[in-house]
């Protein structure tokens, strides 16, 4: 436990990503840490903390992929369409993106159940449909959606061509708003196009 000491914890990025991974290797803390990340820290009021929490989720997912698939992903899919709180939506979309990216190191089609694959592919169009880009924090949501699109592409989540068009539109709209993460997204979109 001396990995987690006065100095090493001084750096927040380190604390969130590498030291937390170290501590989470102890079975008794693993679930606690994952639960805390996806239930509490992804919905923290500070945007940088939400981003860090999503990165931590990326690091932690390989430790217990089954738990992520069975519990965390369904939860995040629900809360990323949360109608009330923009902070919850933003954090959930980010968390969803990173969890998918992490699982993408394996063949997603073999490990994810079909209904989850369907839901993931449908998330971006659903956000569009519910007009969740509108209002305060909309731009922030767009940034998160871009990250989600990138991760969906990296992990090669199967999609219908209609969904692909929607996704492309979402990224294009964001690009028009001069959001930097959109450029990255286009890169990944091209990956998607070539693959499917």
């Amino acid at each position: 436990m001396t990995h987690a000491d006065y100095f090493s914890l001084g750096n927040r990025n380190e604390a969130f990503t590498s030291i937390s991974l170290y501590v989470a290797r102890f079975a008794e803390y693993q679930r606690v840490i994952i639960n805390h990340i996806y239930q509490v820290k992804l919905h923290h009021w500070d945007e940088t903390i939400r981003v860090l929490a999503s990165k931590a989720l990326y690091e932690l997912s390989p430790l217990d992929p089954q738990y992520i698939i069975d519990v965390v992903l369904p939860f995040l899919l629900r809360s990323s369409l949360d109608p009330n709180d923009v902070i919850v939506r933003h954090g959930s979309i980010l968390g969803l993106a990173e969890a998918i990216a992490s699982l993408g190191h394996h063949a997603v089609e073999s490990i994810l159940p079909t209904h989850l694959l369907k839901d993931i592919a449908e998330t971006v169009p659903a956000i569009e449909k519910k007009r969740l880009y509108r209002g305060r924090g909309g731009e922030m949501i767009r940034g998160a959606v871009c990250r989600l699109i990138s991760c969906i592409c990296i992990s090669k989540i199967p999609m219908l061509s209609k969904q692909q068009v929607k996704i492309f539109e979402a990224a294009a709209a964001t690009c028009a708003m001069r959001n930097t993460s959109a450029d990255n997204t286009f890169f990944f979109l091209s990956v998607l196009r070539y693959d499917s």
Partner: protein
Amino acid sequence: MASSEDGDASATTQKVALSAENLFVEQEEAYELVAIITASTSTSPVDRKDAALTRLRRILDKYLECPTLLDQNVGNISTVLMEAAKHVIIRSDGDANRIEFQHCSHSLSALYALSKVRGRKNVQKFLSHEVEDVEPLICALQQFVNDGKDHDVLAIPINNNPDHPQRWESLYMLWNWLGTLSLVPFDCKIVLGDASMIASLIKLGKDHLAATGPTREASATSLASWLSRPDLETVELAKFVEWSSDIIKKYTHGSFQSPTVFLVLGVMQTLVTVLKVSSSPREIILRLMSPLWEPFILLAESNACDSNQLLRKYMIKWWSRMGCLYMPPRVASWRYQRGRRSLAENLQQTGTSTSKGTDSSSQGQDGTTQKISSNDAHCDKIMDELIDVPDHVEDAMGFIIEALSDSSTTVRWPAAKGVGRLTERLPAVCADDVLDAVLELFTNPEADQAWHGACLALAELSRRGLLLPNRLSEVIPLVVRAIQYDIRREQSSVGSHVRDAACYTYWSFARAYAPSVLKPFVPRLSESIILTCLFDREVNCRRAASAAFQECVGRQGADVSHKFVCLSLAVLSSQFLDVSHTGHLLELQTRNIHFDPCRLLFTGKSQ
């Protein structure tokens, strides 16, 4: 904090003490500057002295963050400076010769610069306390004040060149010096001859209590230590109390010629310091002070002190010290007693023996220490019931508990300490009520200040053994929640102070209870603390949590988790070598600010 306590670390501390000599990098330069400052004006002109003083202030200010690094030199430097000032002051003994203050003001200002960094009390103890110094110093102070009559005594002088020694710095040091001299163990009549000297000293002190700057604090503590001398107490303290009661009444009523808030602050500080330092029997000091009880109640009930946090802080100190006076000092018979404990033993158990061995040995230890023979327990219970708790104590406790949710941290801290000190003197039934009142502060989840105060109070109670193990099941869930406390307010959230305080509570629990007592709660607490340790937004909370957790691993030993056996402090050295690659330690070493014995050695090793 852990390693400095156990015996076998003495070798470590010795080595560190050796290296501590090197930690004051500018040591030689500082002594040269002191030599310039203390030289007579004929050999070193004022300009040169000013420059030296400025440079010395700059050097010392660098150590504000870690003043203990100066410890080896504080004595030498202050003695040299004090001797120089004394030479000027004492030589012109008698009223014919006037003291040329410009000859010693540089030394006094340098002394102030040192006491600013290392703390007033640490420098004060090196000032001279000889009988023959008392009279000249009182005269000097008087003359110093009279000289300044032309322009305002209490204000910063007209010459506001910051390099120049400031007037108030000299005044501050002279008052501190007088405070030390009050400890001269001979009768005032012998030391000072006639009573007029002491009367003028007290008058001077009273005048200074209204100062707006730091000299108020110096004169208040100095006056307090004079007034609490056994030979002055009966007459002078009684008069002072009468005078203060008048001032407080006037201030409460807010009449036309009501005193300034600074005067009230000075008076209150003097009074609470008297309560702290006085060594006379409880009954005597209580009789002297009790006339002030009513005025203070009225002051507390009026809203006169709502706007001033310093005033509220002194009020809390007053209540807790007066409350303690109303109860005879005693060690609560009902408190949780754990007996001897040793970190070294704990760690040894963790490192070598199997879990079975540690269990049986720790149980044996607890069994013997906690067992009080039934006869004794019965007697204590009867004694407990016989203790009468005066209404005053209840009033004081009421004010103190109310202050636990004060808006300012500087008030909540003394309130928490007051809860601890006062509860120690109460019978078990009343102490249970106190705990109930503290726990009630947790009821409103939105009240972050109340949570903070309550966490501090719980920590104080547990450190004194006043939080009995049978209430832990009620308390622990609240602490677990407090460790994660975070309340969203608009665009941000509050609660880092609560989390920090809750880590302290956890830390003190880990130290206070035997592993067998805390065992059922440790998993839940540890989960919470680990999360704060890793994922808190604020660095101070992460660090507090990790310190608390390490304390728990050390104190609660193998019972925490078998996994920690291989991870405990034994591994510290190798881990540290890892960490140092990041450059943290290198940076620290060059900055010279870290002074934990154990860490320092590892730093050396990893370089």
